[in-house]
């Protein structure tokens, strides 16, 4: 167990470090968009930092945090050491090596291609190979978690897995299905092309493979946050989980619904037929369902918590919740922001409305509510709860930890509101300087880019608080023996029998059928067309 804690701590350490660097870059970008002339502000620096921010936040921070969380929760919930510990460390080493290679390419200016790296923009091979190594590392990690579960299962053939493990296994399943797309894009297209082994690449095929991966990627981020909401939060709030079985259903549904939807990121692309885009759009809406169920179950669990803390009226259970607990406050606030983000997602998926917001600032407003709040804020709250147990030290600088989630919430409200509105007014995303030679249309964005910059400053302050608390805890926290990781109990008592939602094999089979339905024909049609590849460009 101690060995697993050390491995989990190493992963979370890398995650927090990446988060810190990326947060520093973010504040500079928010200020640049407001057209504030900072001394070192150049277009080259801006686009380089957007690339670094995206890669470090969306790929490195999330993946390493999830790997660390997965190790900690699985070994605690199953109460056994990690199987294949050596493989776990190998996976860590591979992923760190990959991160270092990609970071070198980005920071030395050889890979200013943003974290979506659409060809024919061409980065240094170290960028593509590095990111591929991060994915390979995550596969090895998946193997270690699955092996740990299977060894437990042999001893408990009839028992359902603890909900936290069930959720982690669903996360891994979504990830393994999704990463087939990115592996194909990297290994078949981008790596040989960047090495000069092939001369051209089909940019649309690369986009199709990227978004086959890119949408389930968001559930790879979200499901571990849901694991915390279901399996940890109710206990931290002083209550019980309202429904264990619906939690299992939610995770099973995500396995099925996450992948056959990628074209909703490509509504505006040429070369894909309208019918297949519509099919993916319709599929997308069903992903709202498990999140609707989650909203009910988690809010009901919080009501149970409030009432067990003495609330009696219709609504005063809300006030009775421990809003000063860093984990509880982080999750509550992240849920509020996610509710708005979810409805924004439904708008994005409606192809008619999508044409108003596609690639505008609305999109960055949207995903900072989802991955930037529902996921990142939950992870920060989780770190306040988990890291002290992993390192055996009490949380230090607790006042900062109590304030930090509120500061994040406030900063994100300002940032996200401003970006949603400027997006509707047509401001594109990812531009260094939205002035457009003083065009009238660009004038109206001005006040709101300042609001967005203010939000960015608050978010940066919040991120700095988080880093200080983490550093303080690891370095100066008082030693403690209270290191048991405990999970929420279901209201109806622990589940005794496996149900249909515990049958992973069946859900994986359904998921694969849907993947084939959604992708086989359009991909085959695409490959049969007369296509022309592109050579690489490096306009950075």
């Amino acid at each position, binding site marked *: 167990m101690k060995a697993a804690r050390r491995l989990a701590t190493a992963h979370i350490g890398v995650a927090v470090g990446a988060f810190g660097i990326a947060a520093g870059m973010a504040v500079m970008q928010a200020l640049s968009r407001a057209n504030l002339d900072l001394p070192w502000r150049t*277009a*080259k620096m801006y*686009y380089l930092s957007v690339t670094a921010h995206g890669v470090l936040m969306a790929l490195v921070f999330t993946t390493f945090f999830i790997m660390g969380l997965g190790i900690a929760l699985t070994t605690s919930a199953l109460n056994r050491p990690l199987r294949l510990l050596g493989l776990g460390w190998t996976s860590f080493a591979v992923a760190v090596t990959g991160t270092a290679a990609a970071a070198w390419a980005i920071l030395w200016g050889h890979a200013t291609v943003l974290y979506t790296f*659409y060809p*024919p*923009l061409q980065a240094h091979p170290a960028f593509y190979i590095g990111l591929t190594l991060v994915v390979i590392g995550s596969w090895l990690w998946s193997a270690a978690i699955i092996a740990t579960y299977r060894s437990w299962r042999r001893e408990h053939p009839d028992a359902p897995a603890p909900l936290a493990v069930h959720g982690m296994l669903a996360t891994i399943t979504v990830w393994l299905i999704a990463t087939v797309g990115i592996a194909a894009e990297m290994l078949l297209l981008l790596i040989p092309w960047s090495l000069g082994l092939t001369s051209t690449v089909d*940019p*649309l095929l690369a*986009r199709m493979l990227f978004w086959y991966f890119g949408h389930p990627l968001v559930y790879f981020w979200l499901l571990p946050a849901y694991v915390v909401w279901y399996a940890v939060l109710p206990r931290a709030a002083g209550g019980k989980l309202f*429904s264990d*079985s*619906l939690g299992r259903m939610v995770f099973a549904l995500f396995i099925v619904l996450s992948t056959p939807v990628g074209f909703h990121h*490509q*509504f*505006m*692309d*040429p*070369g*894909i*037929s*309208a*019918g297949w*885009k*519509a099919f993916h759009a*319709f599929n997308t*809406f069903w992903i*709202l*369902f498990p999140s*609707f*169920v989650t909203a*009910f179950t988690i809010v*009901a669990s919080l009501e149970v918590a409030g009432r067990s803390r003495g609330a009696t009226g219709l609504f005063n259970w809300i006030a009775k919740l421990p809003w000063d607990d860093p984990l509880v406050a982080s999750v509550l606030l992240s849920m509020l922001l996610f509710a708005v983000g979810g409805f924004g997602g439904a708008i994005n998926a*409606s*192809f*008619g409305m999508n*044409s*108003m917001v*596609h*690639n505008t600032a609305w999109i960055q407003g949207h995903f900072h509510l989802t991955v930037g709040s529902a996921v990142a804020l939950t992870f920060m709250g989780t770190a306040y709860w988990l890291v002290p147990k992993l390192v055996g030290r009490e949380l230090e600088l607790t006042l900062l930890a109590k304030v930090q989630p509120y500061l994040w919430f406030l900063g994100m409200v300002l940032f996200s509101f401003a970006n949603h509105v400027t997006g509707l*007014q*047509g*401001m*594109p995303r*990812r*531009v260094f300087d*939205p002035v*457009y030679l003083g*065009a009238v*249309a*660009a004038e109206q964005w001005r006040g709101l880019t300042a609001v967005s910059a203010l939000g960015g400053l608050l978010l940066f302050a919040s991120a700095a608080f988080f880093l200080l608390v983490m550093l303080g805890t690891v370095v100066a926290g008082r030693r403690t023996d209270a290191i048991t990781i405990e999970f929420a109990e279901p209201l109806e008592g622990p589940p005794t029998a496996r*149900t249909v939602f515990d049958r992973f094999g069946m859900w994986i089979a359904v998921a694969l059928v849907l993947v084939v339905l959604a992708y086989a024909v359009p991909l085959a049609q695409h490959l049969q*067309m*007369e*296509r*022309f*590849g*592109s*050579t690489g*460009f490096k*306009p950075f």
Partner: protein
Amino acid sequence: MHVHRYERFWMWGAAAIIVLFISTMGIGLVGQGLHPPSHVETIDPRTVWTDARFAERGVVANADGSVTVTAIALLFAYQPAEIRVPAGRRVTFRLTSADVVHGFQIVGTNANTMVVPGYVSQFTTVFSQPGEYLIVCNEYCGLGHHAMMGKLIVEVAP
């Protein structure tokens, strides 16, 4: 499996909302032909300047009163950079890229498309309000991305 009665209601409600969302799009799709924008046509990106479809760029009036706009997106400009179209007429845009992936977005309208090298983007729209519109590239294309712009002038139809 025990599910609380309220949660059952909630789940039926959630499913009903989703069916409603999908039906809204479905009715638009079947009844009004509001399908996702799409056009499937390929082109060799190395020869776009001489390809018969893009050798002549600009605005062409068609016999039925509609117009067709042909343009190439390149690092970091549109060619032509200024487009004049009549108000209230159907305008079909045909675009392709000479190098990397670009965007083409007419600010203040729902005219918005990706421009992917090797492919031709085509969509049709109507501008009802005369005036000057800003065209921006909304897909990162390199260090001059924020300077990549064009102008659309919608004129009162003769």
